[in-house]
């Protein structure tokens, strides 16, 4: 931060004459502007179209000769992130009139206007004496000539991808007004081997599919991994010796423990928004009910007591309410109840059955899997059950999980036959469905919160 401020100061310190004229212009603008506004005709414009913002991202320049490669890599990661969001249209570098842009001077905007860019990202990667790498970037509005964002970071050289994700988030946030989701990871179940003898391993990757890491060895079946909203921990269900159990795994240390010790199955765990509790289903005979366990005191609290299968609980971001799936009315449907238990209210009333509800981190939607008519669909509805919208539908789609900004839903799709499942993302508007690259078959994704 401090270095970027210095840069900005160096670049934009006006001399006295500029300051005088600037102030004069300001005074004139304020007096005339205010008076003129009284009688101004107001023309209302509401009909914008949706189109991605054309943005130019030239390769980051190299501060030292050895940094050219990483400069290209950072620009590529940013380009890929913004493109995949569906909200930006990065312009092909071949069209650029300038290939290398100096970050220390205001850019020649005409070069970018002429290729119809609306925003321009310029940056530099510099190897420091201590072996770390410094990344600087500026985001320019090509039409107004304003600098919209600018920042500098320093990190170990091997984390350059993460730097690129952080810069992507800052661009996204500045241009859309919403939090980004690029500096995040996804935990999922990696599936390999023949269909009859699938090996399922927990795996972790960046949201763009890079840096895949396996967390379990695959000797035991694992399902429904979920990220902690606050710590580098994952909770999941594993079929060990005997009944399936809910586990807690620290992804930094690899340490793992069973959550609670109950007779019978425990499954479909999820963290509370504060990360202090885990809510899950406990089997009781032929039925299951919802319980919440405090991770520090290990105290269990019962939330439902019905002769039905209550499962897949998910808290609202403020923890005041939770949604879950229950077949108490016959078919599985989505219910909402207070976070501390109590009367549940059914919110899903469409045809078919609804399952795996998950509350958006933004609080406005609940995503679900909907089954009916031989199809599995991923959809969202408002938290009162209104405004249901199907985002995708097909032979088998399941397990939605929200990006931390609530704008994108990830899920897995199995085309059937001998093939296996793979991960997809789709915008909550239903646009921009994209496959997420994974090394093999993949299912049960769960999005992490923003890392930074």
């Amino acid at each position, binding site marked *: 931060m401090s270095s970027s401020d210095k840069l900005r100061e160096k670049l934009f310190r006006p001399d006295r004459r500029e300051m005088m004229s600037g102030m004069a212009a300001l005074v004139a*603008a304020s007096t005339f*502007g205010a008076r*003129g*506004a009284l009688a*101004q*005709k*107001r*023309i*209302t*414009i*509401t*009909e*914008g*179209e*949706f*189109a*991605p*913002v054309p943005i130019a991202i030239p390769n980051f320049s190299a501060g030292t000769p050895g940094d050219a490669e990483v400069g290209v890599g950072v620009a590529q990661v940013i380009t890929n992130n913004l493109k995949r969001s569906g*909200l930006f249209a990065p312009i092909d570098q071949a069209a650029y009139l300038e290939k290398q842009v100096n970050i220390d001077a205001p850019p020649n905007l005409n070069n970018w206007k002429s290729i119809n860019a*609306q925003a321009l990202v310029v940056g530099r990667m510099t190897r420091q004496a201590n072996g770390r790498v410094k990344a600087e970037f500026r985001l320019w*509005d090509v*039409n*107004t000539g304003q600098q*919209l964002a600018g920042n500098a970071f320093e990190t170990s050289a091997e984390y350059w991808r993460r730097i690129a994700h952080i810069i992507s988030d800052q661009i996204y*946030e*500045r*241009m*859309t*007004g*919403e939090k980004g989701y690029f500096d995040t990871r996804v935990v999922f179940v990696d599936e390999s081997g023949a269909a009859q003898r699938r090996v399922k391993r927990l795996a972790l990757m960046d949201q763009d599919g890079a840096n895949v890491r396996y967390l379990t060895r695959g000797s035991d079946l694992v399902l429904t991994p979920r990220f902690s909203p606050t710590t580098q921990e994952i909770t999941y269900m594993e079929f060990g010796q005997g009944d399936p159990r809910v586990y807690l795994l620290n992804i930094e240390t690899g340490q793992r423990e069973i959550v609670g010790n109950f007779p019978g199955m425990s499954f479909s765990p999820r963290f509370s928004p504060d990360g202090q509790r885990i809510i899950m289903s406990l089997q009781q005979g032929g039925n299951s009910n919802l319980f919440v366990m405090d991770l520090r005191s290990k105290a269990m609290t019962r939330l439902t007591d019905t002769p039905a299968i209550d499962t897949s609980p998910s808290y609202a971001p403020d923890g005041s309410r939770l949604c879950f799936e229950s077949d108490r009315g016959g078919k599985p449907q989505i219910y909402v109840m207070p976070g501390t238990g109590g009367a549940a209210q059914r919110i899903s009333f469409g045809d078919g059955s609804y399952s795996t509800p998950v509350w958006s981190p*933004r609080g*406005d*939607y609940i995503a679900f899997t909907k089954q009916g008519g031989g199809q599995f669909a991923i959809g969202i509805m*408002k938290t009162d059950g209104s*405004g249901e919208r199907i985002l995708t539908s097909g032979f088998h789609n399941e397990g939605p999980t929200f990006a931390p900004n*609530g*704008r994108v839903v990830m899920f897995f799709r199995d085309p059937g036959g001998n093939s296996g499942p793979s991960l997809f993302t789709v915008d*909550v*508007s239903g646009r921009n469905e994209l496959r997420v690259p994974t090394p093999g078959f993949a299912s049960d994704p769960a999005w992490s919160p923003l890392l930074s």
Partner: protein
Amino acid sequence: MAEGTGKPDLKVKVDKTLAASIVLHVLVIGWGLVSFSTKAFVMPEEDTVAVDVISSDQLSRAMAGQKDGKKENPKPLVEKVAEAKPVDDAVGKIDDKKPPVVTDTAPAPTPKVEKPEDKKPDPPKKVENKPKEEPKPVEKKPDPVKPDPIAEAIKKEEKKPPKPVAQAAKPPPEQKPKDRVFDKSKIAELLDKRDPTRASMTGDTLNANAALGTSKGKAADNSATWGAMFRQQVEVCWKNKPYGGLDAQRPEVAIDIRLKRDGGLEGMPVLDGTPSTPYARAYAESAMRAIIQCQPYRLPAAFFEEWKSFTPVFQEKPL
């Protein structure tokens, strides 16, 4: 040769008619010389009148009245020179010929109403004579007449298949509504045959510009015209307003702009106020980009005074 006298005969034979002709000519020409030559042939001087050619919309604007018009015309609207009489209804057709009609109930123009029946198939007329008599007492309602003849005609058709076929030569147009025949003789039917509903506004002098300078006048405003043109142009550029999702705030962004005569921006657009949220800021910037990108704007030069400075307001459509 003649003896004694030897006097030559001096007597010339004067033709009397010639003399009369000469005398008359002299008289006439002499009178003419005297009477015509006295007055110089000079055109009287006239005042020059300036004439402007204005378009119809300029005229309609002038007639609509302007708030800032000069208050030099305090006279009421007068369409006809006569003794001043108040007229309540200032719209509708004006009757120049008849004395003003206060209500339209007084005259009962029954014959006129009958006319449309000419279009209907003739048979009913022949069959039904009575209904014709009926309408007279019932002021001018032809409606009860119509259904009967048609019903009768239908009955007739049902009863007597052969004859109606011959008579139904005219009804076919009803069966084939696609063939719309243009009948010049029926143009008159389209004319507005209503009686005038009001009398002319009368007064001692004609005055058609009564609305000028009145307090109920509007400011000169053609923003509906050029505003729509501006909107259409800027909307094409306002492509990437940030997507706010279902529960997003509904921002409203007002931007003051000044345009040059060529439709280009005179300076940077000025945002009204400061956006309170990152989303509102991104929204405002998207609108700003659209305004800058879409210039120059093609707007009617006639209204330049109105659009040289105005405020586009960008907002979300209400759900």
